[in-house]
């Protein structure tokens, strides 16, 4: 989605045609959950989507980091977040349960692989090019 999402945003979100809802999965385990927790903490400072983009943009670097928590904190500060508030939020672990609940709901809805997309309820399994999403969205656009 790192390449496709910006195109969707420019073509359809900015024009008011679509809204993107993010439902994080944790099929890859604890590191993914920590990353999702970091985006929630960034959301407390109104930078959820900036943090999400920052993590997606450097997944390799984060995954290879000695401490993913320290890596997330570094990226949070790099995008201008209050580091102390971010670290405090991460240490609280307060979003773990809501995130895991959301993951359980996704699995109950039949989401067993990744990525999966739904466009007005039409499920698309697996990564797609922008043009494929655009074709579906254009059909649905009034």
């Amino acid at each position, binding site marked *: 989605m790192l390449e496709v999402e910006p195109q969707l945003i420019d073509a359809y*979100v900015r024009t*008011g045609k679509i809204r993107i809802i*993010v*439902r994080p999965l944790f099929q890859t385990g604890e590191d993914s959950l920590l990353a999702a927790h970091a985006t929630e903490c960034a959301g407390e400072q109104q*930078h959820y*989507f900036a943090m999400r983009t*920052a993590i997606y943009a450097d997944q390799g670097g984060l995954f290879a980091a000695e401490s993913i928590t320290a890596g997330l904190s570094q990226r949070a500060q*790099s*995008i201008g977040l209050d580091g102390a508030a971010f670290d405090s939020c991460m240490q609280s672990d307060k979003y773990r349960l809501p995130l895991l609940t959301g993951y359980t709901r996704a699995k109950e809805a039949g989401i067993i692989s990744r990525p999966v997309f739904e466009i007005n*309820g039409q499920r698309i399994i697996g990564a797609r090019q922008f043009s494929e999403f655009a074709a579906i969205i254009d059909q649905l656009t009034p």
Partner: protein
Amino acid sequence: MTIIRLLSMIIFTVVLANCGSQSVGSPAATPWPSATIEPTREAPTQTTIAAPTPIVIATNEPIIVVNTDDSLASGLTPEGYHVLGDMAAPITFVDYSDYF
């Protein structure tokens, strides 16, 4: 004394007087050139509005430029999922994805 010689003396006197008046108001020593920039004919007159500056993340990996455009609307669904875009948009795009 010719007229030309007389005019030359007057001009010389005026020049000397001007030099003196400038040095009175100047600092004793000015180590750096004045910050004042004189406009020139070549100077562009078009006003440029800077775009939002992207944030550059420096890591061990190649430099990453992150779009931090926060001009888009965002919010939460009643279930607590994050939404980007107009909540009243006619099409809902749900992204189920994972990090790493």
